[in-house]
């Protein structure tokens, strides 16, 4: 694509990349401070146990150790962990450092501060702890039984229990020609950012101010949560977030970061904690891990008559304070209808706590849970009916002219065209040819399959009761030299906002993006606001920046009009100047540099500015969603997401039937995220998202044994896909602008992760159709796949 200097829809190279690619990125762990101490954390080796005694005497004597703190001692400096989000769930009383009881392998128990990390870890080795081991709760069945209670005061292990029904589902099923029911499961996995969590806390006892530098997606939310947890005034805390090596949702809470704050507060010195990979696997935010029973009725024309879903999820030890994971289940609960028209709906969500690590956000946040079982179900129903999975989807898709469309569970979908997306995807994948080739290849003993999944990516959440509440403030300012700065709380986590937000402003201001700097990552610098999560950037932040830039433009035009003696309505901004529209006369034009200089320096504001305008060339706009609805309707329904990108994803896989190895040959997707700001970045987000989906489908799995120990704690045993496992990915775009955002943009970035596990699994079943393979569990390990093939062969032999 040709590169131009301004405007939307242009694949501009990312402004941030030269810094990252040449090693000039600056991450939290790169920062060293005078007198800084390093932390190591002694973590629980037990999934569930009472702490009987802790002996730190030997460790305290180790030269270089500055302080050792137990959970009980920490109560002098901290309260319980603040609540991130609380919607129809129980909130446990949990602490940054375990207190009385441990609830997962890896829970922090004792903290050591020492002159370096080596000594700190040596000291951890010298601490002796006696535990009274309790029965552990590992599976959903354990939790329901229960084998033990995590929070005795609850009386059960249920953190989330929610039901909703609209219409009479039993009557709908009674009137159906076909009814299908399947239980579909998904393994537990995590975001694995390449930079794990890191935090430097620096409490100054003189000023009583705390500066917290950390790898976070949401500096302001972290600041608020730290203030609430430590019970100190929020205005005395400054959170700085430097370059971030990925977040994927896993860095949205003040969890372990609080530990560094506690230690610095106690010691009055800067302390650093760098999470290692083992710690991240154990205690970083985890996701998925559910069993979902879906029942769908079809009439004689294969039109859906009703849907009933029961979702059972294994949250782990908590999903409200350690991390904001629990409400993901509710998101799933309202989005199971997905891309389809569901006339009658009945849903039940049960989230239980177990002795696994905490539940947080991870690329998908329940939209993936809504997608996988239903998109699998569409294929399973088509297989059983002997019809095309394409036809079944086409008959039930929401139609283009039905938007804005209200999903039966409440969400309002802004725009889209699934039928067209399906056509594009099939054509670009050359679907018919692939299916012919499949037959030819089978004769040669090669098993290739094609799988389809429709995609719905609710983006830009505005959720009540917590940190995901859905607003965004942006400030745009012009400097005296006539260039620009954009300030928001929207952290750069690799998604390209240092480029896309300037593109949005440049489009309004008629300047080069090189003349615009995006400032973020410091709570003392930017307006209070939320971070990147829920694919909200192109819904909320882009809209806020766009509106703020328009305000600034209006002000600049008024000043320029005054100076040029031209009505501001007749002015335009072009190439860094303001001029009378179309005019080439120097008398009817003023450069932004000249304008800024005149206002601020030569001569300065008096006389330069028209009556009624102030000198501050800085405009702030706070954007809120026009479509979010928190007031429940008669059925208790609300609308939390503003925009809804759509797509159809096709995966092509090949299976070695001798070994069960699965290779993904190719992904072709049609995608619609409304108005596109930077096509290259959109394609990159889709590709990265698919890579995450491939991980979940083929290899990633947090495996807990029966005693509740995580058995794969490192990247040698927890496998993420590499470039070798991620195939060629082709993306094709439709642009159905959102009516709910000023530019028609829709947030995106999770859309690759949401549909790809179903596309891959559907493709695998298609490849192995001769063996009647039915996928039971993810990930699709060679052993499992070979087992299903063998089962199919045996069944075949009987016939």
């Amino acid at each position, binding site marked *: 694509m040709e590169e131009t200097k301004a405007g939307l829809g242009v694949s501009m190279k990312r402004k941030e990349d030269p810094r990252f690619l040449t090693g000039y990125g600056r991450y939290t762990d790169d920062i060293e401070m005078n007198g800084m101490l390093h932390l190591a954390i002694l973590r629980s080796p037990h999934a569930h146990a009472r702490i009987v005694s802790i002996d730190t005497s030997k460790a305290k004597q180790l030269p270089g150790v500055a302080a050792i703190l137990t959970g009980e001692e920490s109560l002098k400096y901290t309260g319980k962990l603040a609540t991130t989000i609380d919607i129809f769930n129980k909130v446990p009383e949990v602490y940054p450092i375990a207190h009385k009881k441990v609830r997962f392998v890896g829970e922090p128990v004792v903290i050591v501060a020492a002159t370096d990390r080596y000594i700190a*870890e040596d000291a951890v080795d010298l601490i002796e702890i006696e535990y009274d081991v309790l029965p552990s709760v590992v599976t959903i069945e354990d939790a329901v039984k229960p084998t033990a209670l995590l929070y005795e005061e609850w009386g059960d292990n249920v953190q989330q229990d929610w039901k909703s029904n609209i219409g009479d589902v039993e009557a709908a099923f009674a009137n159906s020609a076909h009814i299908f029911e399947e239980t579909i499961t998904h393994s537990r996995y995590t975001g694995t950012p390449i930079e794990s969590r890191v935090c430097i806390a620096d409490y100054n006892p003189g000023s009583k101010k705390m500066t917290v530098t950390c790898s976070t997606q949401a500096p302001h939310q972290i600041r608020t949560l730290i203030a609430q947890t430590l019970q100190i005034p929020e205005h005395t805390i400054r959170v700085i977030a430097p370059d971030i090596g990925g977040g994927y949702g896993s860095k949205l809470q003040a969890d372990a970061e609080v530990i560094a704050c506690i230690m610095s507060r106690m010691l009055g010195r800067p302390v650093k904690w760098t999470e290692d990979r*083992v710690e991240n696997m154990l205690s970083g935010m985890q996701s998925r891990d559910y069993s979902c029973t879906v029942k769908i009725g079809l009439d004689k024309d294969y039109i859906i008559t009703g849907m009933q879903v029961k979702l059972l999820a294994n949250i782990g030890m908590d999903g409200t304070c350690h991390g904001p994971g629990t409400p993901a289940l509710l998101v799933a609960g309202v989005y199971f209808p997905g891309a389809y028209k569901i006339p009658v709906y009945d849903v039940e969500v049960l989230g239980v706590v177990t002795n696994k690590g905490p539940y947080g956000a991870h690329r998908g946040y329940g939209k993936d849970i809504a997608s996988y079982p239903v998109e699998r179900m569409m294929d399973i129903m088509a297989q059983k009916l002997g019809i095309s999975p394409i036809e079944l989807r086409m008959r039930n898709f929401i139609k283009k002219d039905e938007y804005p469309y209200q999903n039966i569970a409440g969400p309002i979908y802004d725009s889209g065209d699934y039928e067209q997306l399906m056509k594009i995807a099939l054509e670009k994948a050359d679907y018919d040819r692939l299916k012919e080739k499949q037959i030819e290849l089978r004769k040669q003993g090669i098993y290739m399959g094609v799988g389809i999944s429709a995609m719905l990516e609710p983006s830009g959440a505005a959720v009540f009761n917590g940190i995901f509440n859905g607003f965004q403030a942006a400030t745009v300012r012009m400097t005296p030299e006539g260039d620009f700065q954009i300030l928001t709380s929207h952290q750069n986590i690799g998604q390209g906002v240092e480029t896309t937000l300037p593109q949005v402003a440049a489009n309004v201001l008629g300047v080069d993006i090189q003349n615009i700097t995006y400032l973020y990552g410091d709570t003392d610098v930017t307006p209070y606001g939320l971070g990147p999560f829920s694919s909200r950037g192109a819904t909320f932040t882009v809209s806020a920046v766009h509106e703020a830039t328009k305000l600034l433009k209006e002000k600049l035009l008024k000043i320029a009009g005054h100076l040029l003696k031209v009505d501001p309505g007749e002015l335009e901004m072009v190439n860094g100047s303001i001029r009378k529209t179309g005019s080439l006369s120097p008398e009817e034009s003023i450069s932004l540099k000249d304008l800024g200089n005149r206002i601020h320096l030569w001569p300065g504001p008096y006389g330069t500015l028209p009556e009624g305008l102030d000198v501050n060339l800085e405009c702030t706009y706070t954007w809120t969603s026009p479509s979010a609805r928190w007031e429940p309707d008669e059925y208790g329904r609300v609308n939390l997401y503003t925009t809804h990108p759509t797509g159809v994803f096709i995966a092509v896989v090949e299976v070695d039937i*001798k070994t069960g190895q699965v290779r993904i040959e190719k992904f072709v997707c049609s995608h619609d995220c409304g108005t596109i700001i930077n096509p290259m970045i959109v394609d990159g987000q889709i590709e990265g998202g698919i890579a995450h989906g491939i991980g979940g489908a083929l290899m990633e799995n947090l495996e807990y044994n029966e005693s509740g*120990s995580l058995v794969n*704690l490192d990247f*040698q*045993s927890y*496998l993420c896909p590499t470039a070798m496992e991620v195939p060629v990915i082709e993306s094709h775009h439709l642009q159905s602008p959102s009516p709910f955002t000023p530019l028609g943009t829709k947030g995106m970035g999770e859309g690759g992760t949401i549909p790809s596990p179903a596309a891959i699994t559907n493709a695998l079943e298609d490849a192995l159709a001769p063996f009647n393979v039915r996928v039971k569990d993810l990930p699709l*390990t060679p052993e499992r796949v070979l087992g299903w093939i063998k089962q199919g062969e045996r069944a075949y032999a009987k016939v």
Partner: protein
Amino acid sequence: MKPAPFEYVAAQSVNDAINALQKYGPDSRILAGGQSLLQEMNMRQVRPSFIVDINGIKDLDYIRQSSEGLAIGALTRHRTVERSELVKQHCPILRNAAENIAHFQVRNRGTIGGSLVQNAPGAEFGVTALLLDAQMVVVGPQGERIVPASSFFVSHFTTVLKPNEMLTEIRFPTLTKDTGYSFIEVTRRHGHIPIVSVAAILTLDHNETITDVRVALGNVSPEGIPYRAKAAEQLRGLKFSDEALEKLAKDIKDEVNPDVEADTNAAFVKQFSNIKGRRVSEIASSEYRKEAAGNLSSKAVKHAYEQIKGGM
């Protein structure tokens, strides 16, 4: 993720190294490429008190032609083996084996001697050494001894090496030009630790009668050491055919006896969990490994056959 305290000794010669090993005893470990040892140390799965670094012994890094074949110094990096002209000319299967070891970053540091002494189940050079009846040159305080590959490996992560001995050289025979060869693996991910690895060689006479065939496998034996399939040798004297391959697959599947409890027999304990575990990802059930061993073996012999026919 920092190692426990240790003393560091840089050896400049084999004598230096042996002296250091003698002095510090069983609590010492040799550091060669460090691709396994340093991870284990960083995770405090092992806590040697003394590290004897042999990277300074430059005269252990060589590939030489000898009268019987190739002599490879223990400190030779995987990448050197992979790229060596001598290896390509005289024992090209070693190149295929090397290509299957992890990713190039690991191959740039990891050494052939380190891999053999580490004896991780499935490791590529161990399987190839057993296939080709390689000879290991072991040096200790009493001087040099030669150990055939068939008696070098003892159990998971354990060889016949005594704490005061080190491996200095590995001798591989020359593969004749008419020998077909193959090295393949089942892994869960490109370059990852093999679930099962297989090396095979094949020679035929002009009537397509098999004159020599050998198959060695990794991660299928009860002891966790490379395994030489007996079923393969039974093909000698038979005509090469698809039926013979099918039989081979079945026989090897029946013959191998993978360790059922691979994880409980392993050498180190994972941090934070009470599991005695090696690397969970490569653990597949005994049943799966049997199946894969059979299928992979016939595939490898078939590759070797195609290679002969392709004149490669």
